């Protein structure tokens, strides 16, 4: 099932011929064709032919890409700017990119200089001037200068968005990135619990709301940064609001709701991604190429 891109009216802007499709950032989106990743512009023009084994998004004019098991950073001409020295690398965010060597994570700047030596077990990208990381199953919140601000005492901690980070209590960690079970809530920048852990699933905050799910009554709601319900939605699944629209799954098909909860783009898609720079990737039915 291929991915296409739609605009805010739901009109297809880039035809469906991608195996995978990322969001647009700095006018560029990563796409997968024939098992390799490349990059397209906002009208579907091919900026870099698919040849990478994996890829992230462009930020500060640089995107992380993987070739032969190693990650480096390229510019929009496809030139290597930061050599393929890393086992993993994430997008630049707030002028730092998380990179991993020998299972330890640190940060580099856009010149490729190591800013934080890879010594942490796991990190999120720099967000709102803070780094959330874990070492030996203890979570830390660092400032940009690398100083510990505090140690959030939870089983899992997300990065900050709209001044809020999701936290989990009671879940069982599977590896560094995943956690199973437990209940989710949110803390603010000071580490104070604002939303008591009570949800079975939460998204990060985006556009001052977070989609949260309660299994007990099978309900999705959006809450504000005070934990107040702002919107309750009848949907099987939801994703965060971006550019005023949130993907929602109803009867097995995805569309987009607006901030008042009204369906703005019909549920026509097999999957739907976030809007970014006026475009969103959507998965559509395969075209039949047989005679």
């Amino acid at each position, binding site marked *: 099932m291929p991915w296409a891109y739609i605009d805010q009216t739901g009109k297809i802007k880039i035809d469906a011929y991608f195996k995978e499709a990322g969001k647009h950032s700095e006018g560029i989106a990563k796409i997968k064709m024939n098992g390799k990743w490349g990059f397209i512009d906002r009208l579907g023009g091919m900026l870099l032919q698919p040849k990478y084994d994996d890829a992230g998004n462009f930020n500060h004019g640089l995107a992380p890409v993987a070739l032969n098991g190693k990650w480096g950073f390229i510019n929009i001409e496809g030139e290597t700017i930061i050599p393929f020295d890393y086992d993993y690398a994430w997008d630049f965010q707030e002028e730092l990119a998380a990179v991993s060597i020998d299972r330890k994570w640190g940060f580099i700047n856009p010149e490729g200089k190591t800013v934080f030596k890879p010594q942490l077990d796991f990190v999120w990208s720099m967000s709102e001037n803070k780094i959330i990381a874990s070492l030996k199953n203890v979570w830390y919140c660092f400032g940009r200068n690398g100083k510990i601000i505090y140690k959030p005492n939870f089983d899992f901690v997300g990065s900050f968005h709209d001044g809020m980070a999701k936290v989990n209590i009671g879940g069982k960690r599977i590896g560094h990135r995943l956690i199973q079970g437990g209940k989710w809530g949110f803390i603010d920048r000071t580490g104070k619990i604002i939303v008591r852990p009570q949800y079975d699933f939460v998204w990060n905050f985006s556009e001052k709301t977070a989609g949260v799910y309660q299994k007990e009554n099978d309900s999705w709601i959006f809450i504000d940064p005070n934990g107040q319900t702002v919107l309750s939605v009848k949907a099987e699944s939801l994703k965060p609001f971006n550019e005023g629209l949130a993907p929602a799954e109803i009867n097995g098909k995805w569309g987009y709701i607006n901030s008042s909860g009204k369906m703005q783009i019909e549920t026509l898609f097999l999957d739907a991604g976030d809007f970014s720079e006026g475009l969103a990737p959507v998965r559509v039915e395969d075209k*039949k190429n*047989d005679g």
Partner: protein
Amino acid sequence: MTDKMNFYGKKKIPFFFLIDFEMQKPEVWTLDEMKKSGICFDFNGIKNDFELLDFPSHPFSFQKYPIPYDRYLNSFQEVQKSLAMGESYLVNLTFKTLIETSLSLKEIFYRSRAKYKLFYPGRFLVFSPETFVRIEKETIFTYPMKGTIDASLPDAYQIIINDPKEKAEHVTIVDLLRNDLAKVSGNVSVVRFRYIEKIKTHEKEILQVSSEIKGTLRPGYHERIGSLIYDLLPAGSVSGAPKQKTLEIIRGTEEDERGFYTGIAGFFDGNNLESAVLIRFIEENNKKLFFRSGGGITLDSDPEKEYQELKDKVYVPIA
């Protein structure tokens, strides 16, 4: 080359010809000569005696890698400058799109549906809907095409037929071709103006707008059939208007020589002539395939729409 064509015409010997857009590398064959070349053509059912092969209708893959929009926009803006200075009022601007498909060019020749199909082994494949000229007895016909729209859009027919910009472009082309026909024939008239045909592709159905123009040739025209064809070149629909200045703009703006793309191919059977404009063109180059496509640019053209059209034309007509 003109002489050779005139000679075959005079002797009423059937021949097939190919003339590139730049008119630098024309080729002419009699049917016997053609056998060795491996060239296959099927023009509206008129064919040379190529081997009839049965390609089963297996599903196929077809992927396109359109050029970046910025690159298109640069050329588009160059063209717009010339249009603004009044050097031209319609320029056909074309680009190459890299494609990858599980189909071979030969297979596309056998499996595709199109008015004019031509396969030149190792060089290119064409499945063109566009007639260059047709000559029956002493009447010469041409069918300029300008304007396409996705047939699945609501009111597609109304939209395309009522679009003033589409109409203006079409009028320009009809006018240009009427002038062209008047160079070689008399009593030139527009028989049908802006009629619509449906074209099926592997992706969607599109509506195509055409007109029909005819003129009367002088008796014995076939003795100078080569000169007659050359007088009409290059085809107006794939160059623009006025022709000479527009050709300079195309040469100065486009990234590649066109070669046989937007050139013409034709078959003279000893009496009548059928010929096509070589558009919907896939070129083979260093084992890579490039689909060539483009569109007419006027001062009113919207670059994003034109770019979309360029990409939409990259398809194979295998339903």
